[in-house]
């Protein structure tokens, strides 16, 4: 098994690892790859832009604080990172439930939107509206697949479902959403 110790400047293999320096993970590359995916995971999950940046930042800060406890390969790292993101979403909804109704949250989605992003915003709002009728597990699968860009295998690892189950649920969900799009 490959073992790595990651730093922001670069990631070098742990002393037990046999890989050479050239094969080591590059934390900057990992950050640039995963930051947009975590960001989009929150957009899909929240159905709005507000607080997405804050939650993305908190995900990386938590991961960064706990990075010494993590020593695995890149695939494992993204699963670990999205687990942190999933927990933050749960906490977020828990705290929001006592402050905002869903109708109020809808009204907040059109704040601070650049003109070129309006169409994308409109699609995001439409998805949020359609997804509201879905169970929480299905909304999570959509966010992990299309927001975070995880493979079915990674989603299975993250949710405890089997890979084939993830595939068939997503297939059904996409058909359902497309029919109502």
């Amino acid at each position, binding site marked *: 098994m490959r073992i790595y110790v990651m730093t*922001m400047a670069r990631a070098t293999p742990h002393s037990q690892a046999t890989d050479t320096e050239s094969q080591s993970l590059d934390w900057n590359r990992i950050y640039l790859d995963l*930051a*947009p995916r975590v960001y989009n995971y929150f957009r899909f999950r929240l159905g709005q832009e507000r607080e997405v*940046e804050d939650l993305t930042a908190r995900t*990386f*800060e938590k991961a960064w604080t706990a990075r010494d406890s993590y020593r695995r390969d890149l695939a494992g790292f993204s699963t670990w990172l999205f687990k942190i993101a999933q927990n933050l979403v749960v906490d977020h909804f828990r705290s929001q439930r006592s402050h905002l109704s869903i109708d109020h949250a809808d009204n907040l989605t059109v704040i601070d939107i650049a003109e070129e992003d309006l169409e994308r915003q409109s699609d995001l709002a439409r*998805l949020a509206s359609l997804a509201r009728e879905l169970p929480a597990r299905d909304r999570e699968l959509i966010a992990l697949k*299309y927001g975070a860009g995880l493979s079915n295998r990674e989603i299975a690892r993250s949710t405890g479902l089997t890979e084939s189950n993830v595939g068939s649920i997503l297939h059904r969900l996409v058909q359902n959403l*497309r029919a109502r799009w």
Partner: protein
Amino acid sequence: MNDDFLYRIRAEPSPRFVASLKERLNQSEKAPKARLWALRRSFFVGSLITGAACLRRA
């Protein structure tokens, strides 16, 4: 499976946000190191003072 309509919703985070978060993570990496050096320095100075006090008594 035609799922392009879902992929189209994805958006890039603003470069300003990506850069500022990266900078914050970099800073948080430097901060513990700085604290560690301050602790080592204090320990070193403390040891010198204790050593000097012991020598004076002897």
